[in-house]
C-alpha cells in the first residue's frame, strides 16, 4: 500500500467542486434570503430610526418615529381594530371550524362534495371576497335592500356604512373565507385520532357528547395550535380584504396596521413612521411564529 494513494483522491479541482456542489446549489437561495428577507428587515428597521419622508434618508432620529406613531390617532384605531378583528376572527373561525369538522365526521354521505363547498373560498383572492361582500352588505343594493323589497320595510343592516360596526363586516367576510380551511385542519386532526381509542371509550359508555368533550377535543390541541398560529398571522397581515371591502373606511373606522403602514409610507410620505409601524407588525408576528417554528423544527430531530 502506498501512502500517496491515500493522500491523493480529494486533491483534484473537479473532485473538490463535486463535493461543494450541494452547497453551491443552495447558495443562491442563501444569498436571496440574506438580502431580500434579513437584509431588507434590517434596512426597514434602520429607516424606522431615521427622518425618511418621501424617500429614504439617513438622518438618525432615535425613537422619535415610534413616539410619534403612538401619538397618532389613526394608529390607535388601527391597533384596537386589529385586536377586535383578531380576537373575533380567530375565535369564530375556530368554533365554526371545529363544529363543521365534527359534523362532517359523522359518516356523512357526499362528505367530499360538502367539504369542497366549505373550502372553496380559500382559493379566492381576498379582493374577490371583498368585492362580493362589499356589494352584498351594501345597504343600497344588498341584503338590506333585498329584505326591504320582500316587504319588511324597516329592516336595517348597514354595518358597512357605520363607523362603529364596519370592522365587524371585515370579520364576517374573513370568517367566510377561512373557516373552511380551519375545518379542514380540525378534520385532519380528528382523522388522526386512534380509532381503537374511540371504540374503547364507546365501550366505556361515553355518550357522543362526552366522547368529543373528554376524549377528542383535548387531543386536537396541536390542530388548535396550528390554527391559532395561521389565523393570527393572517389577521396581522390582512390588507387586501380591508382595501377591497371598506378601503379602511368609513373615515378611518376600519384602519388596520397593514393599511396604516401603506398609506403613511406611500401616500402620506411619512416613511419613517411607516417603517416603524412595519417593525411593530413584524415583532408581533415574530412573537407568534418564532416559538412555533422553534418547536416544530426541534421535534423533527
Amino acid at each position, binding site marked *: 500500500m502506498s501512502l500517496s494513494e491515500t493522500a491523493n483522491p480529494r486533491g483534484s479541482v473537479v473532485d473538490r467542486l463535486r463535493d461543494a456542489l450541494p452547497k453551491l446549489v443552495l447558495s443562491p437561495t442563501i444569498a436571496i434570503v440574506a438580502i431580500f428577507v434579513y437584509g431588507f428587515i434590517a434596512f426597514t428597521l434602520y429607516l424606522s430610526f431615521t427622518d425618511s419622508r418621501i424617500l429614504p434618508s439617513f438622518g438618525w432620529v432615535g425613537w422619535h418615529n415610534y413616539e410619534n406613531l403612538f401619538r397618532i390617532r389613526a394608529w390607535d384605531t388601527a391597533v384596537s381594530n386589529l385586536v377586535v378583528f383578531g380576537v373575533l376572527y380567530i375565535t369564530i373561525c375556530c368554533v365554526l371550524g371545529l363544529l363543521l369538522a365534527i359534523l362532517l365526521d359523522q359518516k356523512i354521505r357526499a362528505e367530499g362534495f360538502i367539504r369542497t363547498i366549505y373550502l372553496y373560498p380559500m382559493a379566492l383572492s381576498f379582493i*374577490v371576497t371583498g368585492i362580493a361582500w362589499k356589494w352584498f352588505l351594501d345597504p343600497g343594493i344588498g341584503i338590506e335592500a333585498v329584505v326591504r323589497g320582500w316587504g319588511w320595510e324597516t329592516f336595517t343592516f348597514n354595518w358597512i356604512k357605520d363607523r362603529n360596526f364596519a370592522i365587524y363586516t371585515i370579520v364576517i367576510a374573513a370568517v367566510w373565507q377561512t373557516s*373552511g380551511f380551519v375545518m379542514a385542519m380540525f378534520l385532519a386532526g380528528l382523522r388522526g385520532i386512534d380509532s381503537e381509542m374511540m371504540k374503547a371509550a364507546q365501550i366505556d359508555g361515553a355518550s357522543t357528547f362526552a366522547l368529543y368533550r373528554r376524549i377528542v377535543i383535548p387531543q386536537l390541541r396541536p390542530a388548535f395550535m396550528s390554527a391559532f398560529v395561521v389565523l393570527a398571522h393572517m389577521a396581522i397581515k390582512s390588507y387586501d380584504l380591508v382595501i377591497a371591502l371598506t378601503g379602511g373606511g368609513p373615515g378611518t373606522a376600519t384602519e388596520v396596521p397593514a393599511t396604516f403602514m401603506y398609506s403613511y409610507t406611500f401616500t402620506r410620505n411619512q416613511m419613517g413612521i411607516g417603517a416603524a409601524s412595519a417593525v411593530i407588525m413584524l415583532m408581533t408576528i415574530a412573537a407568534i411564529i418564532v416559538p412555533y417554528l422553534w418547536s416544530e423544527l426541534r421535534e423533527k430531530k
Partner: protein
Amino acid sequence: MSTMSRSSSLRPARVILYLLLALFCIYYLLPLYVMVVNSLKPLSEITSGGMMSLPKQWTIAPWESAWSTAQVGVEATGLKPYFLNSIIMVVPAVALSTLVGALNGYVLTKWTFRGATILFGLLLFGCFIPFQMVLIPMARMLGLMGLAGTVPGLIFVHFVYGIGFSTLYFRNYYAAFPTELVRAAQIDGAGFFRIFWRILLPSSGPIAVVCVIWQFTNIWNDFLFGASFSDFDSQPMTVALNNLVQSSTGVKEYNVHFAGAIMAALPTLLVYIVAGRYFVRGLMAGSVKG
C-alpha cells in the same frame, strides 16, 4: 372514526345533522351565487332590490364590458390586458420558485450539513414576515435593477418570496423519501444532479403539483406586491379589479364588477375544482406538518 355506528336508530338526529350541513352549504355558496346571477342581469335589476333573484332578462353584456371595454383606471380597456399580465407574471414565477424549492429540499434532506435546520428555519421565517417590512427596500432595489413598475419585476418579487414555501414542501416530502435509494444510486455511480434527475424527480409528481398549485394560487391572488410594484400597464388582475370597483367616477356598474370578480377568481377556482385534493394538501403542509 366512527361515533355514530347506531345511526339508523337515530333518525331525527341525522335529519338535523344534514339540515345543518345544508345550511352551511348555503352560507358558503351565497356570495358565489350573488356574483354569478348579478353578473348576468342588467344593472337596473340590481339597483331595484333584485340582488337575490335570478335575472329576469339574461345578458352577457356585463361580461363583455368587464373583459374589454370597462374603465379601469384612466383607460377603457376592460380587464383583458391585466388578466394577461397576471398570466405572464404567474407562469415564470411559479416555475422558478418550484424548481429552486425542489433543489433546496433535495440538498436540505439528502446532502444535509451542520446548520441545515437553522438555515431552513430562517428560510421558513421569511414566509411569515409581514411583507410591509420589505416594501420600501424592495421598491428601491427594483429601481436599481431597472425593473420598477414592470412585469419582470413582479416575477422577481414573487419568485424571491415564493422560495420559502416551495422549499418547505419539497423538504418535508424528500425527508420521507428513503435515503437508502440515494445511497444505492451513489454506489451505482450517479452524481448529485443525476440522482436528483433520475431518482428523486420522477417520484416528485404529487408534491410538485401541490407546490405549483399553492404558488399559483398565492401569486395569482396577491394584491400587496401588485399594488406596490406595478405601473398602470403592468398591473396584475387583482389590482386592476380593485381599481375597476373602487373607481369613483360614473355610475357604479355592479354587474360589471361581479363579472370582473368572477374572471379574477376563475383560474384559481378551476384549479381548485380540478385538483382540490392537492390544494388542500398544500394548505395543510403550510400549517401542520407531518
